[in-house]
């Protein structure tokens, strides 16, 4: 379960103060798929960075299964990112000189998983996301965007995280491929019992999620799907 209370994030640039996250409160149950929508520059990525412990909040708390990650030490945060979080980015962000399978093995290496086990799991994850055998030993530059994003999803799942955070995972893909990737994420939520929070612009996707939130002026509002249109 993910629960966020009175979350605030300020950026200071000289005398300027930007507060993209003013007072965010929300809750997502284990195994739910939540979407966050909002205008460009509304602070969606900023919020996701806070949830993924990529950045420190100015105020507030983020409970992941009863642990407030806003209060963790730097060392514990690294462990948290390693074990409990899986990231999927708009730009895929695979390590360019590693093969697809090596990219999937990387988080397991950080977690100290033995090599043989890493290889097996990476292989089965890539099979699961539908990357053909022949492409598993390719470097990212020789994979299409959709294929790279599949590898990225496999990598995000590598350490069996509690929470997957996706920042516009279909943003660089055509709508059909985007739908596939979205379907993949959706089915994984069910099969791996993992909570997903995805930022998206794609309203057709947003409509199919368990919950949809809209970030407006630094405050998160839950959208009721039935109220729509």
């Amino acid at each position: 379960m993910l629960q966020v209370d009175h979350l605030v994030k300020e950026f200071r640039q000289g005398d300027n103060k930007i507060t993209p996250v003013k007072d965010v409160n929300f809750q997502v149950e284990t195994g739910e798929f939540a979407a966050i929508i909002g205008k460009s520059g509304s602070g969606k990525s900023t919020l996701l960075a806070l949830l993924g412990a990529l950045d420190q909040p100015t105020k507030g708390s983020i409970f992941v299964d009863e642990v407030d990650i806003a209060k963790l030490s730097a060392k514990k945060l690294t462990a948290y990112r390693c074990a409990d979080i899986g990231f999927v980015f708009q730009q895929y962000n695979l390590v360019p000189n590693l093969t697809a399978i090596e990219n999937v093995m990387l988080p397991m290496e950080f977690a100290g998983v033995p090599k043989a086990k890493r290889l097996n799991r990476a292989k089965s994850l890539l099979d699961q996301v539908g990357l053909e055998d022949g492409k598993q030993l390719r470097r990212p530059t020789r994979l299409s965007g959709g294929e790279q994003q599949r590898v990225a999803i496999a990598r995000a799942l590598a350490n069996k995280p509690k929470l997957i955070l996706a920042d516009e995972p279909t943003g660089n893909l055509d709508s059909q491929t985007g739908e596939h990737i979205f379907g993949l994420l959706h089915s994984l939520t069910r099969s791996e019992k993992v909570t997903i929070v995805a930022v998206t612009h794609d309203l057709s996707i947003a409509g199919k999620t368990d919950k949809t939130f809209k970030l407006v002026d630094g405050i998160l509002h839950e959208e009721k799907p039935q109220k729509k249109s």
Partner: protein
Amino acid sequence: MSVVTRGVKNAFRNWLRSLAVVLILSIGIGLSMSMLVANEAVNAKITDLKASIGTTLTISPAGSQGFEGGGEPLTTDEMTTISNVEHVVSVSATSSFRLQNEDSSSDTSSAMPGGMGGSSSSTSTGTTNLVSSVDAGTLGRRNNGVSDDSTATFTMPITGTGSTGTDSSGEEYNITSGRNLTSSDTDYVAVIGTDLAIKNSLSVGSTFTAYDQTFTVVGIFDQGTTFDNAGVAVPLSVAQTLTETTGEVSAIIATVDSADNVESTQEAVQTALGEDVADVTSSESTVATAIESLQGVQQISIIAFVGALVAAAVIIFLIMMMIVRERRREIGVLKAIGGSNVTIMSQFIVESLVLVFMGAIVGLGVTMVSSNSIASALVSSSTSSSSSATSESGQPGGGMQGGGAIDIEGGQGGMQGSTQLIGQVAANVGWKTIVYGALAAIAIAVVGSAIPAWIISRVRPAVVLRGE
């Protein structure tokens, strides 16, 4: 895939840049290792030279130095005085005389003193059936006051030493056959130089005449120089009797217990004998010049070593800065998917180590090729001025024959200019250098990666959520 394999792999990610970096590094590292090698070689040479200063003092009659001769001869009493000085472990003395071939033209002996001032008046000359192995040459004739047209039969005189087994510079005769002279020899026996032996077809057991006495050759020596090997040595007491200088010696060599005491003992002996009786010298001054210039070389090599190392460290630092900046986003990704600072830093340090080690290996090649010429170039350029100055004090060729034994002493000292003393600086790349080189390479890599590593630790993983 581990931190190490990833680091190694990354080192070859941009192979063209890696190649350039490795080449530049190899020059820096190679140069610094060459300097290390040069430094070691020079160091060894300095130790050699210090050892060669030896522990001997030469005591000669006061005022007799140089070609002017003069002064009162030293006596055996002075030997006793010297042997009582602290730190003196042994004292040996030689007397000198010379032998002129009996068939040589008659005007030569009267002409000789004219050649070299009054010096020969203190040196007794006897006749012999031996022929000098030194070719008189133009210098020899000129210095001996013989005009070119009247010298059909002129031969160089032979240097004779009254000895107890050491030559006039205190060195033990290096006997190649037979035996050396000892202090108990009182018969008409002699040891002769190899060149003289060949010239006169003498071997151990042969006889020759000198001062109208028949001498038996008991040994043949090789002292290494044409000049020394043209000489003859007879027992000191025999020489003193023949030259009618009983109790007198022309040079005393005192051996000091350690090189460190040479200077103080030199002063002590001088004080014991008195300024007006004897001049006490050591080979220290000649060698000191050589050592001084070598120490200069040593300093240069240390500075160049450090300089080249710093340059290499700066290069790897700049390259690592460039790489870290370039891969800022990737560093963020590694952090976002659970990589710790230590893991990521290690990966980059491995990368820089790989670059530095490749540079070091190529650099080792550079060192092997260049160190010898660098070492000798450094030595010759910094010592040429001092060595030419020193060698001027020595007289080349047979001209030395004209003076007395004391002049010969001076001549020999001068001849050993610093260039000869320094000789060949043998530089070779040993294991020590390779180990030092490896340590230096690690140091370079670590120093060069320290700031980039710190930057890595400061990369905020949130960068991955920002656009390019």
